[in-house]
């Protein structure tokens, strides 16, 4: 198996996802199965095909510099879980804190 519980916990931390201890082993197995499955790509000789595939147009269209915001049918206050004095509120950063 290519993946262990340490890998799963590491990517879960990067992705900010709780992984309950009771689910860890099952997840390790499922992710291992998926990662082992997609690892067959390593068998494809693709050394020369360095360019990534590009779907859609080959150059980004550019927008004129005009103040024209797409309208909101309802404001941030109507969609936010917590909003006060025009500001979104979240709990203090805790471990992410810098200031």
């Amino acid at each position, binding site marked *: 198996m290519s993946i262990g519980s340490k890998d799963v916990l*590491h990517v879960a*931390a*990067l992705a*900010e996802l709780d992984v309950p201890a009771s689910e860890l082993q099952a997840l390790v197995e499922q992710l291992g199965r998926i990662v082992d499955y997609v690892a067959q790509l390593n068998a494809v000789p693709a050394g020369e095909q360095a360019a*990534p595939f*590009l*779907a*859609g*147009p*080959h*150059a*980004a*269209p*550019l*927008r*004129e*510099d*005009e*103040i*024209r*915001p*797409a*309208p*909101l049918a309802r404001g*941030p206050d109507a969609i936010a879980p917590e909003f*006060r*004095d*025009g*500001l*979104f*509120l*979240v*709990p*203090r*950063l805790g*471990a*992410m*804190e*810098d*200031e």
Partner: protein
Amino acid sequence: MSWETVIGLEVHVQLKTRSKMFCGCSTAFGDPPNTNVCPVCLGLPGALPVPNAEAIRLATRAAIALGAAVHPASVFARKNYFYPDLPKGYQITQFDQPLSTGGEVVFDSPERGRIACSITRLHVEEDAGKSLHDRYPGKTAIDLNRAGVPLAEIVSGADLRSPAEARSYLTALKQILMYAGVSDCSMEKGSLRVDANLSVRRPGAEQLGTKTEIKNMNSFANVERALEAERLRQVALLDSGGRVDQVTLLFNAATGQVRPSRSKEESHDYRYFPDPDLPPLVLASRWIDEQGAALPELPEARRGRLIAMYGLSTYHAQELTLERSVADYFESVVGAGADPKAAAGWVLGDVMAGYNADGHFAVGPEQLAELIGAIGDGTVSHQAAKQVFVALKGDVTMTSPRALAVTLGLVQVQDSTALERWVDEVLAAFPSEVLRFRGGETKLLGFFVGQVMRRSGGKADPKGVQPVLQAKLGNQD
């Protein structure tokens, strides 16, 4: 044993656009929170970015002004991390294929004289929003007005060798960007931000030491202070047999010290990948050339030209070119017929005093040129001219300085009757000084000239005063 300091700087400048990088929201500073927001910069489900042409144009100008190579194709990438002021959970930036690479900033190092600091890359990206940690207890408040504002990130090579040199580099870089008209470069308004990397090594060593990253500096002076504090910290650590860890540090302007940030290095796995919402940024080479051609003369070139064309001193040229608008003003004054050296004196003196106070030129260049001309032909004294200048500042009718001098009664008096009357009055008022002069203290002549000028209200022609004074003081009766 001594240590050599090695510094590299990452500078973010806000590109001067009306609307944001990827949406049509205003970039105005200081609007009520979360009013310049839309589906795109709120990161709403289903919203998509479309790049701002003007941001690309300004970044291209900046790159060319720094002598960088602008690439015909570059790629927007996502930098993935969680932070409450980052609405999408990723920042759209450029990574392995930036807008431009290369370039340099030539400047005067306080220690090493004229040097060039290399530029590694310049890329475009979007800003994050603003987190307010002290507004509500236990809460962080978020304003997304800034989210999505266009930035150019300019990364220097690790070419700087002292905190003071880093500051000089920043001053020169800011000057170039302001000349190119790409950014306001205001640290107070957050339109210029600096992150620094610093390491130390033994002089002559090939290998770089372990570097730390320093953030949270709000002025060029504080960049220098923070780097000096960090340099001392690293040197003390190494001198005592310790080891420098690769950490991120925050500068505290109140204490002048740096302290480690709490963010963990392991969370700095940004998982960059090309943004699938944005095709490559493709720029025609002719368009790139046009942007270069449209650039104004840059500070370095302008200094050289001012010296060569007008015979200015290096110092005057330096001072006059600090800001493009000042150099432009100076050249307008000269263009209106003023003597260049006299114009330089006026611009760097009375004109700059007013400009620094309120940010604009109160006296038109033609007016100043006429005033300088009036001094030159003896119509007004230098002292009187200063009074005329003050009056011109308060005058909105754009009166001619010569006419104003007449109105104010400041035109120089060469009429000998008047001059003799003022001289007689002065000699009568200072009998002991007259005796001392006659006793051989001839340097008092300047004193008498000054007194006559004063008595005349600045109107007496100093060149006419002297012979009258000498004649009268020579009479021993």
